[in-house]
Structure formats: C-alpha cells, structure tokens
C-alpha cells in the first residue's frame, strides 16, 4: 500500500500517522506539503491531527482551502481512500468530503483520555478487520470534536451505514441520553465518533487509532485499522 500524509502548517500528529502506516505496510508514506498541487500515485491519503493554521478560524476551515485539498478532493472522487483523523476529520468535513460539522466540546475544554468506541460498520477497508459491534479503546485529544448535523442527515448516516464508530460506555451502551460516566467526551450528536462518506471510501474520526498500535502504547486496538487498509489496498 502506498500512502500520502498531508502536512499543513500546524499539523502535529503527522509523525504518529507515518509511524503507524510504516509499521503496518513496511513502506514509508509520502509527506506532502499543503502548498503542493500534485499528489503522487497513492492508495490512501491520510489527513493527520494537529492545529492547522492554529485553528484560529473554525477548526480545519483554513486548511480546507489549501492548494493540496483540490487534489485530495479530486482523488477522493476517483475512489482513492481518504482517512481524516481529529483535525484531519475537521479539515475533510470543512472541505465537503463528509457531511456535518465539528463544534467545541460540550464542556468547552480540550480533553485527552482513552475512550471506548463501538465499531458500527465493518464493510470498509478501514474497519474490515474489526467485528461489527466490537468495543475498542482509542485515545482522544481534541477541543472541537462535538459532531453535529441536521436531523435528516443523521437519519441518513444511520440508515445507510455511514456511522463508523460511536462513543460507548465500557459495557457497550450507545444511548446518548445516558451519560453518567462521561463516556461521550465531547457531546457528539447520537454519540458519533466517526463517519464514512456514502461509498465508504472516506473515513473521518476524532479518536486516534494511530496512537494505539503497539505494545509500547499499551494498546493495540488501532492496529486492525491500518492492517485492514494494507490488506485491502496492497
């Protein structure tokens, strides 16, 4: 699998992404500067976490207009897989690759902790190595992860299998009305942590699978995502 990681001014998890991709595929991904206008031929484009342009406007709003994003959108239209993590999710959502918006966390604070997620759909190269309904642990580290969209869209996302991950308690509950243990860290609508586009070729999620891929991390729950991508795209 050949991959490209896009670097914006203010990206800060590109090294984590590179390490996870390289460990899974054995190949170093291309680092592509945001001002470039062309992408090498790749099977996966990863838009990493960070604070692109300081997130001084809406998170991801500036980066969505970087020169490279035109090319990212063109490739996504051709079916090249795109993975947006954290700020990357915000950027590709701002760029129109995914519906909805990421707002300030409900408690208005940045939050870094390990959360439980339920894998909602395994019919994608991103999630094929998980079991449907499997509970996994990924870390989150964000201030603007509160997913919102209109009622009609959320119904469609749910009905069409476009919800990839939901925040759940460690027992696996996803009822957003019951949240005594703070397991939905940001107040996301319908406990949504990650969504696909309609063709399930684009995934955006707030939690960080790339920081849970080794014994060193004390957590390997993110590894199947990268292994699945390598298996599907090699």
């Amino acid at each position: 699998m050949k991959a490209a990681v896009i670097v914006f001014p203010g990206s800060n998890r590109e090294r984590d992404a590179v390490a996870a991709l390289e460990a899974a595929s054995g190949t170093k991904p291309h680092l592509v500067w945001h001002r470039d206008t062309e992408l090498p031929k790749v099977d996966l484009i990863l838009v990493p976490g960070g604070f692109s342009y300081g997130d001084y406007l809406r998170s991801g709003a500036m980066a969505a207009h970087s020169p490279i994003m035109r090319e990212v959108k063109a490739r996504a239209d051709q079916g090249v897989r795109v993975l947006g993590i954290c700020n990357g999710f915000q950027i590709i959502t701002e760029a129109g690759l995914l519906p909805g918006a990421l707002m300030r966390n409900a408690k208005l604070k940045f939050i870094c902790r390990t959360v439980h997620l339920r894998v909602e759909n395994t019919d994608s190269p991103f999630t094929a190595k998980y079991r449907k309904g499997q509970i996994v642990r990924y870390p989150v580290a964000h201030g603007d992860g509160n997913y919102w969209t209109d009622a009609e869209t959320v119904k469609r996302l749910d009905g069409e299998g476009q919800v990839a991950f939901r925040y759940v308690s460690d027992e696996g509950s996803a009822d957003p009305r019951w949240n005594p243990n703070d397991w939905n860290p940001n107040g996301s609508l319908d406990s949504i942590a990650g969504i696909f586009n309609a063709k399930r070729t684009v995934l955006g999620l707030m939690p960080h699978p790339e920081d849970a891929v080794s014994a060193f991390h004390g957590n390997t729950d993110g590894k199947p995502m990268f292994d699945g991508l390598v298996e599907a795209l090699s």
Partner: protein
Amino acid sequence: MTTAQQPEVSLEMAREFGLSEGEYNSALEILGRKPTYTELGIISVMWSEHCSYKSSKKWLMTLPTTGPQVICGPGENAGVVDAGDGDAIIFKMESHNHPSYIEPFQGAATGVGGILRDVFTMGARPIANMNALRFGSPEHPKTRHLVSGVVAGIAHYGNCVGVPTIGGETNFHPAYNGNILVNAMTVGVAKADRIFYSAAAGIGNPVVYVGSKTGRDGIHGATMASAEFSEDSEEKRPTVQVGDPFTEKLLIEACLELMETDAIVAIQDMGAAGLTSSSVEMAGKGGLGIELVLDDVPMREEGMTPYEIMLSESQERMLIILKPGREEVAKAIFDKWELDFAVIGTLTDTGKLVIKMHGQTWCDMPIAPVSNASPLYDRPWEPTPAAAELEDAVRVLPADRTLGEILEKIVSCPDQASKRWIWEQYDSLVNGDTRYMSGQADAGVVRLPGQTKGIAVTTDCTPRYCLADPVRGGAQAVAEAYRNLSAVGALPLAVTDNMNFGNPEKPRIMGQFVGAIQGMADACRALDFPVVSGNVSLYNETNGEAILPTPAIGAVGLLPDALIAVGIAFRNEGDTILLVGEGTGHLGQSLYLREILGREDGPPPPVDLAVERRNGEFVRGLIAEGLVVSSHDIQDGGLLVTVAEMAMAGGVGAALTGLDGADAGVLFGEDQGRYVLAVRAENAAAVQEKAKAAGVPVSVLGKTNGTALTGRGGEAITIARLKKANEAWLPGYMAAAE
C-alpha cells in the same frame, strides 16, 4: 549623539525603572554621561533581578554543575546532558509566576512558549513538557479562576505546538493566595555534535530577526518580575505578553530545518527583555559589539519608539547570527513557514551596543562594562530556626475515626486528590512516544523519536518542608526527584532548578534561599546529580506576605529501553508487596498531621543521602533485571497512602500483614528513602536475597489481593471508596465555579 524625541533622564525616572540610586550612579560613571532614555531602559532591564540574578548569583555558584554526563551546564539557554549513542538531552524549567497571577491564561501560555524556545534554540526537538503549579487556598475567592486560566493556558499552548505534557505537580496553600507559581519545564533531544550556542562570532556577520512581529506587549516584564506585588498589581496587565502557539510551532519547525544546514553561527530566543537581552548577551558572550538598525525590525504596530522596540517582550521571536552569505538559504526556509525574516544589524569590533533608527543614534554604550557592572549583592540572611520535635502522643491513632476514614480524608485533600481534571486538558500522547504520563508512574516516561531508548522526567518540591527547614527541604526536593526517577527504573542524570522565593531584601527570606541552596548542593553532590540549568523567581510577595520557599526541582533520567520502565499500578493478584528502606515513623510536617490533626508543625523528615543513593541503586537494579511489577516511592501521606495509590491505579487491592500494632507514625510517617514494590510471588525470595547482599532493608508488607485494602482489625477499605474520594475533589471544586 542625538537624543531628539527622547524624554529627559533623571534619578527619579531611574527609580521608576527599578534602579536604586547607587545603580543609577554606576550607570553615570560607566557612560561618563547621563544615559539616554533608551539606554536607561536597557540598563534597567539588564540590571533587574530577573536578568542579572543580583541577589542569588553568589549562592547559585555553590551548586555542583559538572559531571561526566554534563555537556553544558548553567549559563546557556538550557542545560545539556549526554544520553549516549551521540544523543543529547536538553532541558530547563522556568517560572512565569507574576504574569500568570495577573492574566492566568496568557501568563501560563507564554510561560510554556518561553521554555520551549529556550530548548529548541539549542537545536533540540522538544519531546516532553511538565509543569509545577502552586495555588492559594481553595477557599480563596481567586483560586478557582486562577486554576482554570492557568491550566487552559498551558493546554492551549502545549497542545497546539504538539509537545506532550506528561506530568507535573499541583499544590494548594494559603501562602500562595497573592502569588501563584507557574513553573514550566521542557525536555528536548538533539544530536550531541549539533548543539547551538548563543555566543556571537565573526565581525561583520549579519544579525537576523525571525518569527513574530514586534508589538508593544510585555514592555518591562522583567522589571515587573523583580518587584513585590501590591493591590494595584492588576493594573500591570498590559505588561503581560500574548502567546501564539501556532507561530511557535512554525518557528520550531523552521529553526530545526535551518539547523540542518550549516548557516548558523549563534542563536538565542528573545525572552525576558526581548531584543535587549538577546543582542547584549550574544554580543557580550562573543566579546564583540553589535549594531542594530531598528527600522528593519518587523513591527506589528505603528510609531514604535526605539525604547519600545528594544524592551518589547513580544513572543515567538529569535535572534540569529548567520554565516556571511547564508541569508538567502535561511530566508527561503522562513518564507516556506510564512514567518518574518529580517537582517536587522551586524556584529562589530567596537564592543558597543549601537542602536539606530530614523537615521539617528539612540543608544551607544559599551556592553562589557555595563554587563560586568551588573550589581551583585551579598544580602544579609538569617538561618531559619529549627522547629521543635513533636511529642510522642502524636503517634497514637485517633479513637474516633476508622483507618478507612483517615485514608479517605488524606487521599481527597486538595494536595493529594487526583489531578485528572488538570491533566486530561493536556495532550499527553502526541508524537506516539509516551510510555507513562501523570498518575501512571512516579515520573513521566517518553522514548526518543525513532528509538527504544527512553527518558524519565519529574518535578518535585515539598514547600511545607522547606518552610520548616530550608536546608532539609532543599535536600529533600532533590532526593525526591532522584527517587521518582529511580522508581520507574531510570538512571538520574541531572537537575534543573526553579527557585521561587519571597523578597530577598528581607534577611529571613534570604535565609530560606541560602538554606535551600545548601541542602540542594549537598544532595546533588551526594547523588551525582548536577544542576545544569535553572531560573530564579524572587519577590513572590504581596503586601509583605511571602510564599512558602519553593525550590522546585525538575530532573531527567535515562532508560536504556523505555519498555522496562515500571508504573505504580498493582497489576496482578498475588504479587508480593515489599517495603524497601526503613523509617522511624516521622510525622513532623506530614500530610497526616495537617489533614487529620490540623497541625503544621515539627521538623520535616531527615534525608540520609547515602541511604537514598543505596536504595535508589537497588531499586533501579531490580527494575533493570525485570523483577519489579509495580513501583512507587513513599512520599506525601506515607506508607498507607502509597499502597492506596498503587491499588487505585491498578484496580487491584492489597492484603497487608503485620499492621495490627502499627501506629500513625508507621502508617503515615513520611520518612525518606523508601519505596513500595510489587514483585511476582515466585521472585520475592530472590529479591530479598539481593537486598540482604546489598545491605538494603526490605520487608514484606503483604500481597496484592481483591478489590480492597485489608489487614487491620478486619476493616476492608474498598478501592472504589478511596477512588471516589480521590477523584471527586478537584472536578467538584472546579464545577462550583461553572
């Protein structure tokens, strides 16, 4: 030389700038004339306590600063130690106390920015941040606001620049009501043969300004940090700088990229006193002169005067001396990162600082005579009187409370309660190299990028000990840092100190400073743990009330493989719990005394440095052999609190034996040099054999078991109950404000 448009200088003005009459007279003597307004401003910051260390230098010189592991000791932007294999670790801790009290969010944020620059200016990529915070009493009306702002400010800056914040400490005490402490530490990694220093060289070489534009923020910040607070301190808000972590992130990447080339002669960040101290220090260290043309400085505001430009503390700026002809190479890099780049002057052979703007000369003064004449004081000091020993009766446990109630009270007191509410606001995981962060181990542990080798980082100080006995308290802070590094298995390398004290012009306060330095020096010597960098923050007083003496110690240790590091959590059922070291049940200045008996008296526990060293070496040896499952040093709250913390962290309880006759001293005494370890039961005998051979007292405390602490009078203290008490206090306290 012309002085057009500059206000007339007088003794009265000099006083307003913080100079004494004697200092003003020295300035007149050195220059042979009255200084210009710009010169007076420059001299006053160069001679401020903050920049000149005039009260502290005499004593700082007595700290040990050398050792085979030291590549660069105090005097540069940060200290540098050898981590083997051509790697160097660069680190420093620095205070941003005064600004954080006045404007907590920006004060703390720019504190993080400043310490990051001190480290990457030497060529290091920052890989870990820590912070040591002291706030006033939780009951004080300002405390909530200050906690909330400081933590959000640190998070704002550290998270955006992408450096994990992996630990720290937070205390509360009424003595900090009017002066909080915000001490931030950064650790970076560089190649030992690619370290950048600040001494300018090469007459005619270009002086280059990079980073953010200069504005009017922070003018005379260094002078503010050199005076006591009074009621009108909040009027000083305009002197607090505003931070931009996004620009800092770009500056890190751009500087590290430039450092890959061979274009740099010398580099320094513009910290306190901005362009003044960076240009004067760089030229001064190189024995050269420097001429600046301020028209070329990138400016954010219109109509700035030379005085304002020289004293601005606008953030995210660096001064670089380039090799001749490398301007284009350097400029291309800063253009790529969309940062300002300007040649603003040249190095000269005159030994003078010359400042020109609008075709006029605003400052023309010799650097060395002014720097060398920076006053040094041997301030009068009084030793702190020894505290009376406690009466024996204090060791009797109160009859009206169960052990569970006592333990619950101690683990939920503000100093001991979980700081999760704070550390969850920090990105502790970015870079994917974090092994242990806050709450998981006695020190934060990260691996070096792309390597298996790791470093451990800790910050320590017990101010209540330092108040009762500064010598012992100073030694204890160093010993605790040594112990926290040893407890995770790391070889202690070196120390950075952040000396926070009251007004040094008072002999009692100066005596605290002198005593703490003496204790620290003794401990650093005995433990081969030299001081390689540091910072002094004096005048932490408001309306004559001083803070507790707080010599905060930051320290770094080395792990040949980060994966061998051990955390505090009990992991298995049936592990043998061992006590390493022994004590007499010392309750003076203990948390038990304060929280249960409502007393803050007695002497702090004595520190036997030979025992610290022996026990630390023993524990590190066991961890290196893979014999230790869980490890935690015994500190605040004593033995039982230590075991409770290990149980809470792992969700595994302990069946303790032999506690039936134990008194409060045994259970809650804060005797030094001790650790609690959990080892697999099958290894317990071998560990005890090794202890015997090493002459280290080791005794069996019990075994890990169930979900409660048991073993005394049939009382089972559940982990759930302790955890609830431990976790509830801070979020509950902060929620009351929201």
